[in-house]
């Protein structure tokens, strides 16, 4: 006589109530249960347990707060109040290309579209601002969290074509927090996240001559975030931050100073 408690029969009982048994195995099992009341009783117990779970431990509705946050991730809707429209610096083709490459592009109501502020290359900065806002709201400002350059650099190097310049600014009050990837014009670009008190600054490094590149140290404001751009011989940089303008300027100065090759550093 078969051992009624054999593993195989228990597995087949479970597979039967899970609908994972093929027709012939099912017939075979029914025959065995007919001959063995203990096995049939075990089947009924498993079935009862499964029914109880369905009734007493059901799938729970996700809280509305979560549903809203998830919907926001998928819905490119303006999050901030419409920005002042200076002029419709709009090129349909560019905007469409950008929409495909950045996560959130928002067109405000009212004006019908949001003109990005007076910049020759509005899209890149606006895209990076959206990235920054999204990352901050999601509470996930970086993909690799580390204050160690030697951790962040290889992580970025494995995912981008630009070799990131990573400087240590902890002594100046801007410790490295981590790194992430921004997508700019469909190209992954390394982004470094530095912290200053409770504020963050994200520096995206772009190949020189890319659309987002623009020399000059002036700071503009997009959607309430400050954006600084500069470039050197090797790379163009776009820094987005929720710091005030003066602190961001300080950060940029410190970054540029630290990033200069030793030979260019002013002699002491």
């Amino acid at each position, binding site marked *: 006589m078969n051992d009624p408690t054999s593993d195989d029969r228990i597995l087949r009982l479970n597979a039967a109530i899970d609908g994972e048994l093929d027709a012939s195995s099912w017939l075979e099992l029914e025959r065995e249960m007919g001959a063995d009341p*203990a096995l049939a009783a*075990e089947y009924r*117990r498993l079935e*009862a347990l499964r029914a109880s779970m369905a009734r007493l431990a059901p*799938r729970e509705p996700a*809280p509305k707060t979560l549903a809203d*946050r*998830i919907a926001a*991730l998928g819905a490119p809707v303006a999050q901030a109040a419409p920005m002042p429209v200076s002029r419709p610096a709009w090129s349909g083709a560019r905007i469409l290309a950008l929409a495909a*490459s950045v996560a959130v592009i928002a067109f405000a109501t009212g004006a019908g579209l949001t003109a990005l502020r007076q910049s020759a290359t509005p899209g890149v900065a606006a895209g990076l601002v959206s990235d920054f806002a999204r990352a901050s709201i999601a509470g996930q400002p970086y993909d690799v969290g580390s204050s160690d350059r030697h951790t962040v650099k290889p992580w970025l190097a494995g995912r981008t074509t630009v070799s990131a310049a990573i400087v240590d600014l902890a002594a100046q009050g801007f410790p490295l927090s981590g790194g992430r990837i921004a997508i700019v014009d469909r190209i992954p670009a390394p982004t470094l996240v530095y912290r200053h008190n409770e504020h963050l600054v994200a520096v995206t490094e772009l190949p020189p001559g890319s659309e987002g590149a623009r020399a000059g140290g002036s700071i503009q404001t997009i959607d309430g975030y400050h954006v600084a751009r500069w470039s050197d011989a090797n790379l163009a940089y776009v820094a987005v931050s929720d710091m005030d303008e003066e602190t961001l300027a300080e950060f940029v100065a410190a970054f540029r100073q630290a990033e200069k090759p030793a030979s260019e550093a002013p002699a002491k």
Partner: protein
Amino acid sequence: MTTAVIGSVAQRRFSDIVPPLLDDAYTLAKWICRNSADAEDIVQEAAIRALKALETTAIDRPKPWFLTIVRNAAISWMAKNRPKDLSYAGDAADLDSIDPRLGEFAPDPEQALIAFEDGERLRRAIAGLPSPLLETLIMRDVNGLSYRDIAEATGAPMGTVMSRLARARASLMKTLKAEP
């Protein structure tokens, strides 16, 4: 007044796939981490991962795909924040000690059936399962994934999935029976 809304391809895919799976995702995360606030964070983290993945991939079978991401996000979250509650590593022996065979095989299942009616006890018994048994049971009985999908999601062979399910259910019955 019109609002022009243009989303990326990834966002369109995301909006089709993820919101309908949110209850499944949330319930799975909540069982694995046993806490609702943490489950919200885990699902959000999983959603961000999913959105990123959808930039380069189209998905054939969204449910097992997204629940796998949720499961992995929950496991890494637990490993990082509450490693002691995550009975995964080094507990193969413990798992084996849970015998899927009940032993008694009482012909009269009445008593067990009554015990199953107590929702609070049932939920406590589920929460007390070791993580590998718990996630397998939830993916099967709550999320309705097939054995094959669960095997792929958990990285375990089919045979292991089957034995984990049998052990999980046997353990529940034992707990419900043993408790006063």
